[in-house]
């Protein structure tokens, strides 16, 4: 959605805002976040960047999956891939330190577009570092990110291969799904408070492909859900994706009939929450979970 640049009213508004001397404030809504298509911030990147900073673990995964881990010079403190354990950390996904990023003299920064980090990342771009902003929400975004990151790193063929591989996994999962019964699922992301994956979230998209039906309706991708509502939804299966919380604390949700009856599938890791090349493995995990429950 890069309508802003073509919309005359938006242009007029921007001009007016500029005339008021009102640049974007730290929390200003006047400059919308990049959404939809990946966009470049700052100058153009060299054709084959060699000093790459990744500001999200899923983008690090993408670079690693493209076989170009050696181009990375900095990652977030949440990165756990064995290929990057020795690399300097530049802060978190929500709080990157521009100073630490600039200190690594990167020629490309990969950013999973997000509101919290926007002021810091915009400043990095303004100071002359090419930033590729990748809004990744759904499965098509993951495929697009693989292609765009491959192209940005100077190897579009590798990006295309990775995307095709994931596309193949999606199709295979869809085929397998057609032979599975359609289970009604509640995807638990956090327990206290109860946070679930709602429509529009990445796990919801994966669940759809895997052949499950999300019991959560509404417009919020990550709603704080009412336990009462979860009980009334009466899912066939609860998928426990709260991997950072102890497995046995799921008993707190025992009011949900599926939990009480032991129809809970605990995921082994956070793959369904990492929109990246872990996509095929995440789909497999979900289908295992759907199959495990009669």
């Amino acid at each position, binding site marked *: 959605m890069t*309508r*802003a640049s073509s*919309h005359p*009213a*938006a242009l*007029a*508004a*921007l001009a*007016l*805002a*500029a005339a*008021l*001397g*009102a*640049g*974007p*404030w*730290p*929390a*200003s*809504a*006047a*400059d*919308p*976040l990049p959404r939809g298509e990946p966009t470049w911030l700052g100058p153009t990147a060299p054709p084959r960047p060699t000093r790459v900073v990744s500001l999200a673990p899923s983008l690090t995964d993408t670079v690693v999956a493209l076989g170009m881990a050696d181009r990375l010079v900095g990652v977030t*403190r949440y990165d756990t891939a064995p290929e990057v354990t020795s690399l300097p*950390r530049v*802060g*978190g996904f*929500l*709080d990157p*330190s*521009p*100073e*630490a990023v*600039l*200190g690594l*003299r990167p020629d490309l920064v990969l950013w999973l577009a*997000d*509101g*919290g980090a*926007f*002021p*810091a990342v*915009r*400043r990095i771009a*303004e*100071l*002359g570092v090419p930033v590729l902003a990748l809004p990744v929400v759904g499965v098509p975004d993951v495929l697009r990110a693989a292609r765009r990151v491959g192209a940005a790193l100077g190897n579009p063929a590798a990006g295309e291969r990775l995307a095709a591989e994931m596309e193949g996994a999606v199709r295979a999962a869809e085929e397998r799904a057609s032979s599975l019964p359609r289970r009604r699922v509640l995807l638990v992301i956090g327990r206290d408070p109860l946070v679930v994956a709602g429509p529009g979230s990445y796990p919801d998209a994966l669940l759809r492909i895997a052949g499950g039906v999300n019991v959560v309706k509404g417009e*919020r*991708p*990550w709603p704080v859900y009412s336990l009462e509502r979860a009980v009334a939804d009466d899912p066939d299966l609860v998928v426990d994706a709260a991997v950072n919380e102890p497995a046995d604390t799921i008993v707190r949700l025992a009011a949900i009939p599926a939990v009480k009856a032991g129809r809970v599938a605990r995921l082994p890791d956070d793959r369904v929450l990492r929109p990246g090349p872990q996509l095929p493995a995440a789909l497999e995990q979900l289908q295992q979970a759907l199959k495990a429950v009669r």
Partner: protein
Amino acid sequence: MTRRRVLLALGAGLLALLASVAAALLLGPQPVSLQAALAGVEPDHAILLGLRLPRVILGALVGAALAAAGVALQALLRNPLAEPFVLGVSGGAALGGTAALAAAAAAGPASLVGAVVGSGASVALGASIGAAASTALVFALGRIGGKLVPEAALLVGVVFNAFAAGVITVVKVLVPPEEAARLLYWLMGAVGYADPGTLVTGAVFVAVAVAVLVAASAQLNLLSLGDDEASSLGVDVGRSRGIVFLAASLATGAAVALAGLVGFVGLIVPHLLRRVFGPDHRILLPASVLFGAAFLVLADAAARMAFLPLGSEPPVGALTALLGGPLFLWLLRRTERSG
């Protein structure tokens, strides 16, 4: 005599500000060389002039505004515990700014209304209106039997803060998630990375507010004696109080619009200065402007340095609360004993 002491205080303040600016420019998780930066060598040049300098300016603006507002509110309330954050004035400003941002998000950031309402000046204006409204509320409800009771006013402020936090939480649920993330980041009280346009707009707001407060500093001396005493000395109490009240609201509104909720600066700085320079507002107010700026610049540099051990930068508001919370309690105990 006073003139000499004012000049002395201003000189000391200026020195403190210069020293803290120099320290903040040279301190950070990334070692940089001043020589290399001035010669245009990257990344030193970009880090020093592109990252640290605008942050230092932003920190100085916010610190000056909050410290000046603190002195003004303390004079109006005749209590050293008064402070924009504690009194709920910052909370009101946050609410006003949030309302402007939510309205912009509702109108759509790409629409004309959205762009105008979401512009920096509107957010600052919304924050100032929110600050003024909450100050009015605190001063109106802090009266018992027609007399302003500082403790009651402080309590009203604390309760209003909790109320504002509740409303902001609800607004956060209503706006789109990515806007909520930005809102949260803003309210955390971090001195972040503002562009030159923002710094200029912020500087204008703060300069106007601070100039009015400095000009009114002699009247603050009289107002702090009490309403009856002040009016018997020829002060138009209602008018003077109104002007100070609006200027303090404007200063707080601008500070909150620029950096979110940074607490206790208006408590810590005036308290220390009162111990050195005494209670005369003609000295205290301008000195607070300079020392407030110096204090927040230094505190923000410390927050930036915390990246090294923590791997993340805490917002400077966390640091000021760490210092200010205990100081507030200590002051509370002391006023209790002396009263």
